[in-house]
């Protein structure tokens, strides 16, 4: 078995609009036939998790400020198969658009009750669920008046090392989309849409939190023709 290539879903490594790619993109990638090394993966879903690792809102003395949201979805392979038991890790800015990181000098307040990291393992149907705060937009130094759209970073493993994925989840209708080189580094507009979560009224918890659904699709096995 091999996993299908999906280069057209992904950004090029050299993307002029995102300045930091300039000195960090290699000149080329060489072909490699997938071997056992690439077709196996660590079983990180077996790592012990804390009871509240999926809930980013309960790690302070009080509730963090901002709009509480539920972010849930399914990890599956292209072709439809669910990916159970895989580790999903997230990190994000707080409601004011500030990361708890020494390198973030955006003059917006830190929230003593929000660290901005979470993790969980997908269930038997590949599903995950986080409770967090809607992150704020924030400025960055890429170009004059550059702002990142609101986003949550996601890291996923899958059942094969070829499926490893780190991405960013965006929110529907963000007015910053058209100005953001990282979002637009994905050249296929349909593929860009796959990074935007969907408002999900049916998963909201009344009187408590709105919900968004974000399904993550990893590379799938090559189709067997004429089967």
């Amino acid at each position: 078995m091999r996993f299908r290539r999906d280069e057209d879903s992904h950004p090029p490594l050299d993307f002029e609009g995102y300045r930091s790619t300039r000195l960090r993109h290699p000149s080329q990638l060489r072909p490699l036939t997938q071997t056992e090394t690439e077709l196996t993966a660590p079983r990180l879903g077996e790592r012990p998790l804390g009871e509240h690792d999926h809930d980013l809102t309960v790690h302070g003395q009080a509730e963090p400020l901002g709009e509480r949201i539920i972010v849930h979805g399914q990890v599956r392979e292209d072709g439809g198969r669910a990916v159970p038991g895989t580790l999903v890790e997230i990190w994000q800015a707080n409601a004011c658009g500030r990361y708890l990181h020494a390198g973030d000098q955006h003059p917006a307040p830190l929230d003593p009750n929000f660290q901005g990291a979470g993790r969980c393992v997908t269930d038997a149907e590949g599903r995950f669920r986080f409770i967090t705060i809607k992150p704020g937009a924030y400025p960055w130094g890429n170009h004059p008046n550059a702002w990142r759209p609101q986003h949550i970073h996601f890291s996923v493993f899958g059942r094969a090392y070829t499926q490893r994925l780190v991405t960013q989840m965006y929110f529907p209708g963000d007015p910053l989309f058209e100005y953001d080189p990282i979002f637009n580094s994905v050249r296929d507009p349909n593929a860009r849409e796959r990074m935007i979560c969907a408002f999900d009224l049916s998963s909201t918890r009344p009187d408590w939190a709105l919900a968004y659904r974000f399904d993550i699709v990893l590379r799938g096995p090559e189709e067997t023709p004429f089967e």
Partner: protein
Amino acid sequence: MSVPQTTPSQTVGPYFSIGLPWGDGPDVVPDGSEGAIWLRGTVFDGAGEPIPDAMIETWQADPDGHYGTPGFRGFGRSPTDATGAWAIHTVKPGAASGQAPHIAVAVFARGLLKHLFTRIYFADEAESNVADPVLAGLDEALRATLVAAREEDGYRFDVRLQGPDETAFFAV
């Protein structure tokens, strides 16, 4: 044939250290494991400057060349420090499925819109390296970028994202 409908990759950005590093990330094997070694290196950009906001992940077979052996994590994760240096505490893998002993490496960084795949081979496995099908597909200079040099307590493997000594990266 249908077009893959996969989720696009995006950069880890400058602040991934909030979410990705683990206390035991570099420990593929626990302290005191028999035959434990340190893999160390520095990640450099195209100007030859060390990259302080990169992260290395490794995936490997156990010393008998088997993947996914229960009790053997096989996986390591190390962010680079202020000097661009990373370190993984592991054991040398055995040869697996007709290949020379090697460790799969994924490189993440601000400025990398998709992680890069490369491989670590070992300088003291010259005989198996000659027969390795992946190394065989590369010219001598590129092959050399994948071979880790022996050091006192392990091996050294520097990663150069760009430039005349650019590491061989793979479309996997």
